[in-house]
């Protein structure tokens, strides 16, 4: 079942921050919110891919319970709070933790201006990282001729894993390890991207929200002022994101 198939009008509705929002059977709170053009902050959710509930930015209060909007089914009568100072403070702390867990050097990162993590930081009013830097030592994988994997910037959102498995049907990536030891790995005997069958036009090569998976040698080809988040807020762009139909068809 694809996202697009859930178009039938259902009389059911929920409220999000006091606003009545209709939903279709099978939709999550996130689905209903996006359909109603309401932004619930998220990084690991991408319509068209199976929700994973990894990043926890979309945590909302639902009838007094904290739930992740992207993986919680909408049910009639739910009263959802999302845009509250408490929840946004928690989202800010999560975003700050994502920054300090990796090595996110925005000034020299070619994803800067097109990066959803950076845009989320701006959206949430993040002025500093607050927590101590982990300064992890992570391996960069430049073995592939057209795709670069820079684990320094990986936030373990799992989008590349799902895109490669469910859309590209190549199953190139996986998350290995648990907790603080979790890491993005490549499903080849060598563990090297160069030995995988990923191609630069694959969804998995393009969907990374940060600068962890990059097309090589395209550095800074988007001029300052013309990058995605130079012109629009992530609260705006996130409302229209969806895996392109041709990719879904391909899957």
């Amino acid at each position, binding site marked *: 079942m694809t996202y697009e198939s859930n178009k039938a009008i259902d009389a059911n509705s929920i409220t999000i921050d006091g606003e009545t929002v209709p939903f279709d059977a099978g939709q999550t709170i996130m689905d209903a919110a996006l359909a109603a053009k309401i932004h619930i902050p998220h990084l690991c959710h991408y319509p068209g891919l199976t929700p994973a509930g990894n990043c926890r930015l979309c945590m909302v209060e639902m009838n007094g319970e904290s739930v992740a909007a992207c993986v919680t089914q909408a049910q009639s009568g739910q009263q959802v709070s999302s845009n509250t100072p408490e929840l946004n403070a928690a989202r800010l702390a999560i975003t700050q933790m994502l920054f300090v867990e990796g090595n996110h050097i925005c000034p020299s990162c070619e994803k800067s201006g097109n990066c959803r993590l950076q845009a989320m930081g701006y959206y949430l009013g993040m002025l500093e990282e607050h927590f101590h830097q982990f300064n992890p030592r992570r391996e960069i994988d430049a073995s592939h001729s057209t795709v670069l994997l820079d684990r320094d910037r990986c936030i373990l959102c799992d989008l590349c894993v799902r895109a490669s498995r469910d859309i590209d049907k190549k199953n190139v990536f996986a998350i290995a390890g648990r907790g603080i030891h979790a890491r993005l790995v490549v499903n080849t005997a060598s563990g090297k991207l160069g030995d995988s069958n990923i191609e630069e036009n694959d969804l998995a090569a393009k969907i990374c929200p940060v600068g962890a998976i990059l097309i090589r*040698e395209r*550095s800074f080809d988007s001029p*300052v002022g013309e990058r995605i988040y130079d012109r629009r807020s992530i609260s705006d762009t996130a409302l229209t994101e969806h895996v392109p139909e041709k990719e879904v068809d391909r899957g």
Partner: protein
Amino acid sequence: MTDSKSTESAATGTRRIAIDPITRIEGHGKITLMLDSDNHIQEARLHIVEFRGFEKFIQGRPYWEVPFFVQRLCGICPVSHQLAAAKAVDQLAGIEQLTPTATKLRRLLHFGQILQSHALHFFHLSSPDFLFGFGSDPMRRNIAGVLEKYPDIAMQGIKMRKYGQQIIEAITGKRIHGTGTLPGGMNRQLSQTWRDALLADIEDILEWSENALRLNEQIHTEHPEQADFAMFHSNYLSLVDNTGALEFYHGGLRACDSGGTPIFDHQDYCDYRQILREEVRAWSYMKFPYLQQLGNERGWYRVGPLARVNNCDAITTPLAEAARRRFKAFGGEGPVHNTLAYHWARMIEVLHCAESIQRLLHENEITGTDLTAEKGDRRQQGIGVIEAPRGTLFHDYTVNDEGIITKANLIVSTTSNNQAMNESIRSVANRYLDGREITEALLNHLEVAVRAYDPCLSCATHALGKMPLQVELLDATGTLVHRLVKQGGGGN
């Protein structure tokens, strides 16, 4: 503004004077003076006690990222670092020739960068010394004082800097730390709107550049007593174009001795390792480069505006060329060795930038859309050399088969002037300090000598932290006699 405080040690008889904050240099340094038992200067040193290590931490990064990584070395001349790295990246990507539009855009960007950097240095940082005097009231000896007493001069300087920054913004999207260069080209065309806006102001910039040049000519011709301030003979190194003319973006290396005789000429900068060496000394994080041919004792040289204007045979724009001829006449047709003539040469270059900007903006190709060249076979080593505002800048990168940087060597302009700045301090200390007590006015004399080079100590040492400028006076036994410290936010 400067505050000072003095502390004395009854036990050792030493006195420590602190002046806070540091002003009017880019970065942080320390000066030590060694005295013999008669309080005569034995040794004077400029220490750069900072460390940043860019060469180390760009190892392991993909090569195409480097221009934007290394431009963060500096907030004054990031464009210089971006362009030097971009030239190296062009080589790494196997690109021989940029498109005409990309070449002109990079040149325009570079002229804008030099214009704004030189304007900042002369008007904001150095003009107070000349307009008020080296030993004048430090409360007034700053850009705010210039604005109050000489508002026209100060405003012209501020607007000239703004104009240079607008050129940078037009091409890179931001006035500081924008993007722009790509392997083999540029990432966007210059809009007609920007071109028209820049052309609308260029006549003013030309006029103000001539005014600034005139002021500097007067400083030298009407104040001959300053001629021997930090004066000494040296070798000079710079790029020149294939005709021997002044060149900032791309050319061959020329070194001349103190008589103006070439030591080498039109040397391919990719062979710089054969002609330059770097010496490490224990007391400074800044290396001491020298010309291999002459050895480390005699092979040190000066770079920057004085070297470039001394070394070149001509300047390709008429007003600047006329100014160069007057400069040469002042030097008796040989090299001008006056350290303060750095300022004069700097303003000749400002005029050349203004003329060149006007010329480039009138060319049709400057708004062209053919921005990138086809890549060729990737190479293992890329070397980019340009003339940054402060002098010849070398970026040298080695990559592995996967395009990851394995080695980097940067010889930053100020590094090349390391020995010369030490010589200047020694000269000033001998003349003004010998046998005397340190005063704020003396401290500023030392600073004036260093300031002439427009040093960017953060660039040169890749510094981390904020170290103050200090002057320490040691007696023959190495005991601290006096120490003057200027603390503060620094200029970078």
